């Protein structure tokens, strides 16, 4: 496979939406290529309901006479391997020679590619079937073209290594040789189209190396800040120290005196609330190179009107959030009557769990390049959501979206940060204002001060136990500033969506359940971070389950299995007050199955040797948590090394993500997720005082390093033929509670606040 980014050659992906001849089928269309060959357009959103709609394919697949198969990757690559996994499915189903497949990165264009937002662990889930069908269609056409050529029965021909072979006669033709003939044929019926059996796949379900591998290890891979335009200048921006602050006055003379500094330009910010896709107020120093811009910024003299958030203190907010959970909140799920459970209880365990603000800390800080020419804006950016970037740039610059073009580079990590296009908007505003191509470069300090943080949170759980040692009642209060509050100050409670992430879908069979939320305000920008509110919800829920297991005298693994009771499909009907999101999928397509959760629990227990006698100074902890439709159980082992320091020798995961499309990338996501989770559990925290973030760089905001990381991460993938589900986020939530539960076993101290030091 050959990776390709069209913008590097300054050429556009062929405007293929024009070349499709109308036909009755809306899912797939055949088109023709200028130089001969076959072009297939695949549309995901069209159904055959509306025949009048113009066909707008999301993905293109072409075969040219030189036997190159080209597949467009319409999702952003940020380490999850999606640029490999989706094209791989098409190629495998076709029988293409993977080494002859070219993967081209798509620009951000909704009319061409549909929604390209790469978030929520859904790329493979959503596109597995359509990709297979596209590949199968191409294979079918090529085989038919060959069969006609040789006058043989199509069923006697096979497709492999980009070649169609007729084994009886030994005849063969390459895909390239057949492409133009295949283009003349009618599309096969999509409903009766035969797909390959899973066992016939050569790439899918196997360890397939990612396509950008060689570029990564030779330094040739192009990330956001690596794009270079002729005449480009670099902007470093002094942004508002407190969200909502404005500039009342500034002096730029000292900055302009720095060699290389060209201009100082003010950016008008969005004020309060700051919004999810807007620039913050700031002063941009534009210079010939990054260093001059950084030096220039140091000597800016700005007077700020700090505004309402200048008195904000995150610590005292947590304190008042804690107070609020002592009151009655807004009930979001109710089953039975918790008060009744409490009155009849022999024991009530009442605990609060605290988790801090987290920053994304992608090693590539945000950067974006913009050029404004002849009324048109072109940007290059490491963005998870190119269309939102496009629309936000258009809105901020007063342009129509048609006049904005977004080229997607590789992302040096995303984790949700690079869905928000604020940095792209900044580059566009400055390019428009100055008329010169601009790269906006965020420093690490900028990144940590002005992130869209994962919200800090406070949870209180009360569990009631009766005299027969049964868990009878579960009352979970959760309070945290909502993501929605970043654009709407009236959003005071966590949304249904945020509760759907591991809180409201408490799966255990407890007769009395009440889940409540409380009000809190956002005083900084809140966003989503890898697995979102599953982080705090899994932490509190899994730690409390461990504590209850101990109180009822059961092993925590056995207790979880017992509490899941009989195999069933959960729908929480009549109990949940709002929408149960199910990650945007229907419960028919993706049911909540307790059997699958039990299965991963059993698997992780077996693989980790749960229950075996450990040497003195070692302990294991367990947690189980379903998120993004993927079932995950986790066991963390802790040991004291010879110096008495606690280390993590091994983490075990059992995962049921349906079909594992690229097993290597499933494992790598879990390995990375374990380490990401270890940072959340042990190292990282953002705090704000007087409205300002207190951490400046990776000294204040710590991420785990190699010596503190789990030494081994064993990922046990359940073999499954079910629909594939996400793997980017699901490893994160159960890590912190499994670690906390192991820590308790080892030290006798329960963990109620993140991060905690080992």
């Amino acid at each position, binding site marked *: 496979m050959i990776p390709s980014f069209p913008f590097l050659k300054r050429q556009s992906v062929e405007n293929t939406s024009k070349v499709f001849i109308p036909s009755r089928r809306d899912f797939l269309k055949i088109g023709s290529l200028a130089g001969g060959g076959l072009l297939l357009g695949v549309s995901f959103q069209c159904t055959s309901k509306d025949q009048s709609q113009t066909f707008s394919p999301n993905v293109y697949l072409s075969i040219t006479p030189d036997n190159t198969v080209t597949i467009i990757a319409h999702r952003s690559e940020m380490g999850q391997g999606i640029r490999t996994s989706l094209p791989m499915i098409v190629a495998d189903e076709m029988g293409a020679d993977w080494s002859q497949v070219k993967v081209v990165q798509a620009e951000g264009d909704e009319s061409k590619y549909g929604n390209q937002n790469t978030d929520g662990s859904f790329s493979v889930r959503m596109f597995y079937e359509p990709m297979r069908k596209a590949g199968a269609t191409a294979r079918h056409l090529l085989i038919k073209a060959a069969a006609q050529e040789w006058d043989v029965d199509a069923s006697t021909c096979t497709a492999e290594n980009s070649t169609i072979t007729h084994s009886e006669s030994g005849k063969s033709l390459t895909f390239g040789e057949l492409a133009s003939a295949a283009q003349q044929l009618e599309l096969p019926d999509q409903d009766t189209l035969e797909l390959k059996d899973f066992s016939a796949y050569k790439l899918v379900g196997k*360890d397939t190396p990612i396509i950008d591998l060689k570029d990564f290890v030779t330094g040739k891979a*192009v*990330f956001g800040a690596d794009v270079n335009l002729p005449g480009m200048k670099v902007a470093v921006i002094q942004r508002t120290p407190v969200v909502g602050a404005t500039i009342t006055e500034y002096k730029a003379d000292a900055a302009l005196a720095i060699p290389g500094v060209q201009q100082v330009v003010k950016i008008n910010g969005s004020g309060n609330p700051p919004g999810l896709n807007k620039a913050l107020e700031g002063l941009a120093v534009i210079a010939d190179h990054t260093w001059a811009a950084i030096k220039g910024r140091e000597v800016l003299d700005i007077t700020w009107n700090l505004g309402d958030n200048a008195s904000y203190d995150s610590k005292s907010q947590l304190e008042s959030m804690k107070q609020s959970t002592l009151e009655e909140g807004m009930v979001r799920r109710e089953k039975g009557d918790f008060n009744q459970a409490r009155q009849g209880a022999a024991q009530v365990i009442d605990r609060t769990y605290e988790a801090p603000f987290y920053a994304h800390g992608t090693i590539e800080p945000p950067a974006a390049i913009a050029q404004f020419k002849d009324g048109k804006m072109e940007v290059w950016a490491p963005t998870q959501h190119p269309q939102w970037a496009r629309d936000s740039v258009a809105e901020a610059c007063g342009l129509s979206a048609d006049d904005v073009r977004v080229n997607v580079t590789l992302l040096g*990590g*995303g984790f949700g940060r690079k869905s928000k296009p604020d940095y792209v908007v900044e580059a566009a505003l400055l390019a428009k204002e100055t008329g010169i191509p601009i790269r906006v470069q965020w420093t*690490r300090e900028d990144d940590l001060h002005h992130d869209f943080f994962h919200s800090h949170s406070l949870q209180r759980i009360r569990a009631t136990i009766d005299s027969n040692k049964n868990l009878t009642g579960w009352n979970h209060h959760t309070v945290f500033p909502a993501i929605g509050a970043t654009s709407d100050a009236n959003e005071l409670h966590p949304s249904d969506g945020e509760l759907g992430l591991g809180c409201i879908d408490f799966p255990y069979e407890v007769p009395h359940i009440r889940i409540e939320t409380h009000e809190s305000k956002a005083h900084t920008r809140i966003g989503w971070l890898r697995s979102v509110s599953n982080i705090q919800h899994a932490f509190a829920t899994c730690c409390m389950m461990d504590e209850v297991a101990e109180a009822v005298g059961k092993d925590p693994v056995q207790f979880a299995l017992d509490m899941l009771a009989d195999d069933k499909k959960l729908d929480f009907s009549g109990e949940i007050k709002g929408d149960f999101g199910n990650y945007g999928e229907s419960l028919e397509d993706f049911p909540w199955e307790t059997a699958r959760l039990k299965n991963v629990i059993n698997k992780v227990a077996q693989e980790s040797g749960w229950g075996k006698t450990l040497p003195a100074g070692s302990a294991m902890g367990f947690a189980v948590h379903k998120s993004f439709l993927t079932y995950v159980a986790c066991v963390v082992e802790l040991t004291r090394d010879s110096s008495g320091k606690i280390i993590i020798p091994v983490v075990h995961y059992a995962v049921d993500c349906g079909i594992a499309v690229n097993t290597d990338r499933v494992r790598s996501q879990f*390995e990375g997720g374990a380490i990401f989770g270890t940072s959340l559990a042990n190292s990282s925290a953002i705090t704000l005082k007087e409205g300002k973030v207190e951490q400046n760089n990776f000294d204040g905001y710590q991420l785990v390093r190699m010596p503190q990381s789990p030494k081994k991460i064993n990922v046990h993938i359940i073999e499954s033929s079910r629909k594939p589900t996400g793997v980017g986020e699901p490893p994160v939530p159960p890590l912190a509670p499994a670690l906390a539960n192991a820590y308790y076993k080892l030290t006798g101290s329960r963990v109620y606040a993140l991060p905690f030091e080992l």
Partner: protein
Amino acid sequence: MATYSLTINGKQQQVEATEDMPLLWVLRDLLDMKGTKFGCGQALCGACTVLLGDSAVRSCTLPISAVGEDSVTTIEGLSENGDHPLQKAWIEHIVPQCGYCQTGQIMNAAALLNSNPKPSEEEIEQAMAGNLCRCGTYNRIKEAILTAAK
């Protein structure tokens, strides 16, 4: 502004810069060599690691005036065809995820093997502790270094 003469990947280069400009920005902005990455600017993440002579340095905090006579090796110059034993091992173990930190990781590992051709796991952990990877590829990095050291 002064003119500096540097040897980078075996090639003599003249650059004009202020004396405090870090080597990182000289490479990236003045010489258009983009394989060396910016992560923190404070010698805290290792993304910008290059070799000065045989040792690893954080180019983000090394002013051009302090480079001196020693030759600089960046990822672009580590091997002719991307076939340094570390690069091969990196491919064998499919180490990278997003890839951003990886050039710095490889350069740091190269310095480690220069001074210690057969490092133990623990020596690897200590030597690589200055290089952050947010994607969490540490264990594969460790395996790849062990493979390359064979």
